[in-house]
């Protein structure tokens, strides 16, 4: 034992301090998912069901999507990118809401972590990093399924991956900010109350121009709408300045949410 506790070789605090510990937080999650990786696979299943029901099923009735610049787009090809964006969103946000609430309120995971050189900021950043990686991972899994269904034609579809990372960042940060306001499991209802309509109406299943202009403006403010834009454009073979606005929007919203989360978590964890 005295070998462990003998002369004090300092624990290289500099290294831990520099990253604020964010990397260690990601490592913790990887350690846990080594036991439970099957959950991630299961998460690919949900968008696949939607793709079958809407893309393939309803797509058979709809044929091509009217009102798009490219009139050759089949309905399933139109819906698939929206489902990719939704997958990235859910994959990331489930982590920073459901799982984080558990760690925050039930397991008090962060209390012991914060007795180390880790900081609240490092913990928050690490959780967001992990969540967006997780979201992107599930998205890539679903992308493989989409490819197998024969809905991919352009190599630009690879831009889905950085797109999913950005979408994951925004929603992970939003989730982290929101979770600090939740008091108990019942409060998750409120999240559902916002997420379900957004999923249904943020141009997931039909283009923006079905709405009158005032409603269009409203929909354009939704983070999921901008996420779908970011991923749908390259998926349909478009690559240009049209991507700048969604990217800037998602970065800004994610950044603001992260700053709010830092402040709220600091107050909650360091009383």
């Amino acid at each position, binding site marked *: 034992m005295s070998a462990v*506790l003998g002369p004090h070789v300092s624990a290289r*605090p500099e290294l831990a301090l520099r990253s604020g510990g964010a990397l*260690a937080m990601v490592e913790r999650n990887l350690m846990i998912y080594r036991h439970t990786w099957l959950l991630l696979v299961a998460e690919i299943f949900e968008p696949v069901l939607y793709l079958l029901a809407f893309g393939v099923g309803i797509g058979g009735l709809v044929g091509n999507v009217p009102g798009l610049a490219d009139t050759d787009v089949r309905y399933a090809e139109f819906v698939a990118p929206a489902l990719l964006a939704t997958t990235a969103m859910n994959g990331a946000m489930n982590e920073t809401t459901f799982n984080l609430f558990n760690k925050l309120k039930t397991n008090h*995971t962060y209390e012991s972590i914060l007795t180390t050189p880790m900081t609240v900021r490092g913990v928050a950043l690490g959780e967001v990093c992990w969540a967006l990686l997780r979201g992107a991972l599930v998205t890539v899994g679903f992308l493989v399924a989409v490819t197998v269904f024969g809905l991919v034609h352009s190599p630009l579809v690879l831009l889905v991956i950085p797109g999913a990372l950005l979408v994951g960042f925004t929603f992970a940060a939003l989730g982290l900010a929101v979770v600090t306001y939740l008091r108990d499991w019942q409060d998750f209802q409120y999240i559902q109350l916002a997420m379900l309509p957004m999923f249904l109406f943020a141009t997931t299943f039909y283009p923006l121009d079905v709405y009158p202009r005032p409603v269009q403006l409203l929909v354009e403010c939704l983070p999921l709408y901008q996420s779908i834009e970011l991923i749908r454009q390259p998926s349909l073979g478009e690559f240009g300045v049209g991507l700048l606005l969604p990217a800037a929007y998602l970065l800004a919203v994610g950044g603001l949410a992260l700053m709010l989360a830092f402040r709220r978590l600091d107050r909650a964890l*360091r009383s």
Partner: protein
Amino acid sequence: MTETTRQPQGTVPEQAAMIRARGLQKRYGAARGEGFTAVAGIDFEVRPGEAFGILGANGAGKSSTMRMIACTSPSTGGSLDVLGLDARTEGARIRARIGVVPQDDTVDVELTVRENLLIYGRYFGLPKAEIRRRATELLDFARLTDKADERVEALSGGMRRRLTIARALINEPEIVLLDEPTTGLDPQARHLLWERLFQLKDDGITLILTTHYMDEAEQLCDRLVVMDGGLIVTEGSPGGLIERYCTREVLELRFGPGEREAMTDKARGLVERIEELPDRILLYTDEGEATLAAAHARGVVPLTALTRRASLEDVFLTLTGRSLVD
């Protein structure tokens, strides 16, 4: 988030103290207006290699003090230096060099026993190979080698506490903080834990522990402070405090129902100080047997009579008029 990570400045004054608190205060809810003062301005110093105790009843402010030392809860007044660094601004740097065993077990329930140690080392930025080596030794130290690959849910209370202690040692800390390390453990588990703590003391680690068990304080602590209502009411070695505030022995007398008051009146004047508790009276005396004989002579007939050495419990009672464990 006011923590900065600036370099330590120059040399440390009065290198001798591991911890130095001056007028240290903790007020909860201060930001929201009024708030509650849990620590009301305390001064103390902890010297290298010492086992320093904070003794006090529930709510005395022990945990609040410990959390400030651990830099997980900012102080709201006074000054606090840990390892010569300012706790207000050098939190991360201080935490890198101390080990913390919080009052409630906070082992990571999503991981196995060994994984708990492995990831904890990563929080300190230690290299993986080094952590693996230390984890194996610490599992042995904590007598948990058999349990290494089990989920922590499978551990008993005593094992969890030992895991928490092993975890706190992963960074080879210079100071280990233990907040009520044996509360809630059965006697056997307590003794095993004490024995482990003695080993740490032998290895020259500075220990700070809170407790409301006087036997624990007497066994483990070289020096202690007694806290009550957020203040330090006295300070000294266990033996020194007993000598200062108590007589050598205590005679405990229990009476039949309804007899206590009359008997207590009869016993008055036998000794300088009598303490009346709900179930018994305590007579502070240097000669227990002689006092008992004198009591019998006066017609004081107790149901049971016990002569024992004075303890820290008696010191606490003398100082606060209350019993330590309610």
